[in-house]
């Protein structure tokens, strides 16, 4: 029977003694969609997973898993929510073999070696039936955990930083495999992480959380090119950050003026500029003249220090290293305002 594999969260709130941890949270996840919840520790991302799983109860709001309301008008306890979950510490039952771990949730009539072998084959661990967790690598253990979670065909999958404990060099091989398997099974997936790189590589959609609220969301490219919040701008890639005061609807920077919508009051603004904004003009009539005071090579990027003719002090900005090589010879810079993000300074 084809089940409706979706998740819908409406107006979800949750609070601890010392304040709100989840504040009016709304989210819908479609079948096969992989969503990464990204945010600093304490932003409420793990709490969100715990609420969906039913380890804790929200103070208000509604959670629907597939066709069932699991919290809100109706209440379904964790064990009946049809959810799969992977944990950072993997959590294979140490006293059980791979076979018994994978078959843990299967009823007696469904528990047979063929079913379990098929699941293991899916995660690339055929023939591991009688092994124990202690004799396997972290990646292999996480694959077993995935097979275990998939055994009862969950309606959604929750991933609580599942690749955090894996070796850096093999992490993405395993992560891509796991995500592909989940997509094949059409299971909507919510993954929690604090690593923007991981989120960009694995997610269809990234949801940025801060202090219990969604502050931004979109596809990885969308968030990189068009962030709605200074925090997500910083999170999704390198930026050079400045604070300048507006002047009659314009902000004057050493690189040029940026128009803003509010021309009535002059305010302080936070300006974040991606390295992509800086290129070298094709002909000499274009661009601004720059005197390089110092620079620091940082691999792909170079930090350049120039004189700020507006504030009268020195100013640093990030530029791609290959562009910098050209800049050193030409001392002229072209500035693309589309890569400058302006936010009111709080």
């Amino acid at each position, binding site marked *: 029977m084809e089940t409706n594999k979706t998740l819908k969260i409406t107006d979800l709130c949750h609070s601890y003694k010392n304040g709100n941890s989840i504040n009016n949270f709304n989210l819908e996840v479609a079948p096969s969609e992989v969503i990464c919840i990204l945010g600093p520790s304490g932003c409420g991302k793990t709490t969100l997973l715990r609420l969906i*799983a*039913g*380890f*804790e*109860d929200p103070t208000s709001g509604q959670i629907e898993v597939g066709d069932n309301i699991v919290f809100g008008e109706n*209440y379904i*306890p*964790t*064990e*009946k*929510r049809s*959810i*799969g*979950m992977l*944990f*950072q*510490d*993997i*959590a294979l*039952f*140490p*006293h059980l073999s791979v076979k018994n771990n994978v078959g*843990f*949730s299967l009823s007696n009539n469904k528990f047979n070696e063929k079913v379990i072998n098929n699941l293991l084959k899916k995660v690339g661990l055929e023939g591991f039936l009688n092994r124990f967790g202690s004799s396997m690598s972290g990646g292999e253990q996480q694959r077993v*955990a995935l097979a*275990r*979670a998939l*055994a*009862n065909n969950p309606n959604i999958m929750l991933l*609580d930083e599942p690749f955090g404990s894996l070796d850096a060099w093999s992490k993405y091989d395993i992560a891509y495999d796991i995500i592909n398997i989940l997509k094949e099974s059409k299971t909507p997936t919510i993954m929690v992480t604090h690593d923007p790189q991981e989120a960009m590589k694995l997610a269809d959609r990234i949801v940025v959380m801060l202090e219990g609220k969604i502050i931004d969301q979109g596809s990885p490219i969308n968030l990189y090119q068009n962030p709605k919040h200074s925090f997500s701008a910083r999170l999704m890639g390198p930026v050079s950050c400045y604070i300048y005061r507006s002047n009659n609807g314009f902000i004057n920077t050493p690189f040029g003026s940026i128009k803003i919508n509010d021309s009535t009051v002059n305010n302080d603004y936070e300006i974040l500029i991606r390295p992509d904004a800086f290129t070298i003009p094709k002909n000499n009539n274009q661009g601004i003249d720059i005197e390089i005071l110092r620079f620091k090579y940082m691999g792909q990027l170079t930090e350049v220090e120039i004189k700020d003719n507006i504030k009268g002090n020195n100013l640093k900005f990030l530029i791609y290293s290959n562009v910098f090589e050209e800049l050193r010879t030409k001392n002229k810079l072209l500035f693309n305002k589309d890569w400058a993000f302006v936010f009111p300074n709080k």
Partner: protein
Amino acid sequence: MISYIKNGWALLSIFLSLIVIMPILTVIFFFIIPGDTTWIHLRETVLTSYVFNSIILILFVSIGTVLIGAINAWLVAMYIFPYKKYLEWLLFMPLAIPSYALAYVYADLLGYGGFITNISSFIFDDNLKSINFYSIYGGIFVFVFSLYPYVYLLMRQAFISQSASYTEIAKISGLNPLKIIYKVSLPLSRPALVGGVSLVVMETLADYGVSDYLGINTFTKGIYKAWFNLGDITSAGKLSAILLITIAFIITFERKLRGKAQYNNEVRSNKHLKMKTLYGTSAVIAIMACFVPVFFGFIIPLATIILWSFSSIDIIYSYDFINLVFSSFGLALSASLLCVMFALIIVFGMRTNSKLVSPFARVASLGYSIPGAVAAIGILIPLAWLDNTINNISLKYLNYSTGLIITGSWCALLFAYLVRFLALSMQSVENSFIKISKSIDYAAKILGKSNRKILTNIHMKIGWGGISLGLLIVFVDVLKELPATMILRPFGLSTLAIKAHELAIDERLNDAAIPLLAIILVCLIPLYFLIKVIRQ
């Protein structure tokens, strides 16, 4: 809130905790009710001597155990010397011998016609009178050599786990070795010192066997006398309440000290102090320092009891002795199963809802610091009331007298053991469950298992080591227990400990030897595991 209600485990855990807390509340109740004439009489005559004797005992036993425990812990943690690898573990051995056994042995050896008295009179030409061991000094001697391992255990651990960085900083700052001990190592291990001394104080206050045998008027003995000799439950209850409040004060004091002194874990370093090797005279002094407490606390008592037992070995085959073994082991086994069952439910309840269950569980585990006599009084009153109520109802409606079905059976006794020893089983179970990652619970839950299945199929299987240790520790403690068993035992029931005590009081030490030996042998088993765990 919804999951609280749906979480039957949390509620069950709280309910079980409350059962254990009830006797504690009963005792506290006695503090506020007015006393009768017996109480006034007791207060005016013997209460001062109870307080005085208890304070003197606590004071000198603390000093003695700290001296022996801390010095030996320091030697073992900081130096290498010949025979250290044996002495280090032998220093734990007095834990296997009940304090009252030490009292019987030394009272005999130092008494008139005793082995040591005979030798000294031979050497000193019979001018020396026998030492009066039946006194508070005898009590101090017994407790010091019987209880110093508590201080040794905790201090040794504290010294060993102390990061070398602290001493290195002290050295760089120009402190000499003595000043380093005084200014750095000792203050750093203060929580362990306070912890060890609190255990010693609580054990001393809870004792009945030693003070009864040596004729020292302490609180516990007073409680027993008020109940049995004067038949006055109010006075027994009032004495219990005073003792309980004193102990609550000690625990609070200890927690406060420990709360402030959490500097123990600040530096997480694997770098430990480098041990120095001792040679010549200093090595001999170190060996002697470690050997003396083992000699007095373990070798002499064990050897004496073995010697006594030679002349009474035949009783092993007697019907009475087999009966004793069965009733003792039966009681100990039932109590340990009961305690571990409660512990499993409560500890698992704490896992499912820590915020809700923990406060109750913590209060319930305070029972361990309550002397057996106090716990017995706290149990006797509500259960006697229950017995009477059942009897009255049965008489009224069925015209049949049930008699004392609870206080007259093992029920009351098992309940007392539960109150006293639940904390021990909870600790073992908790220690083994703590190693099971919380994600394991979540994984099982999300895979559709109920809490009961998670407990039986996962936690009990992974944590079986801790669970069996919990069973064993309670078993041993019940086997040694005296005061609660004496107050609450049904008519005709005796245990190895009670029998040994009665025989010792009747001066039939040779006959007491076999029951004592049985207790000691069983006590050696958990001690073996304890040492094995510490070695790891």
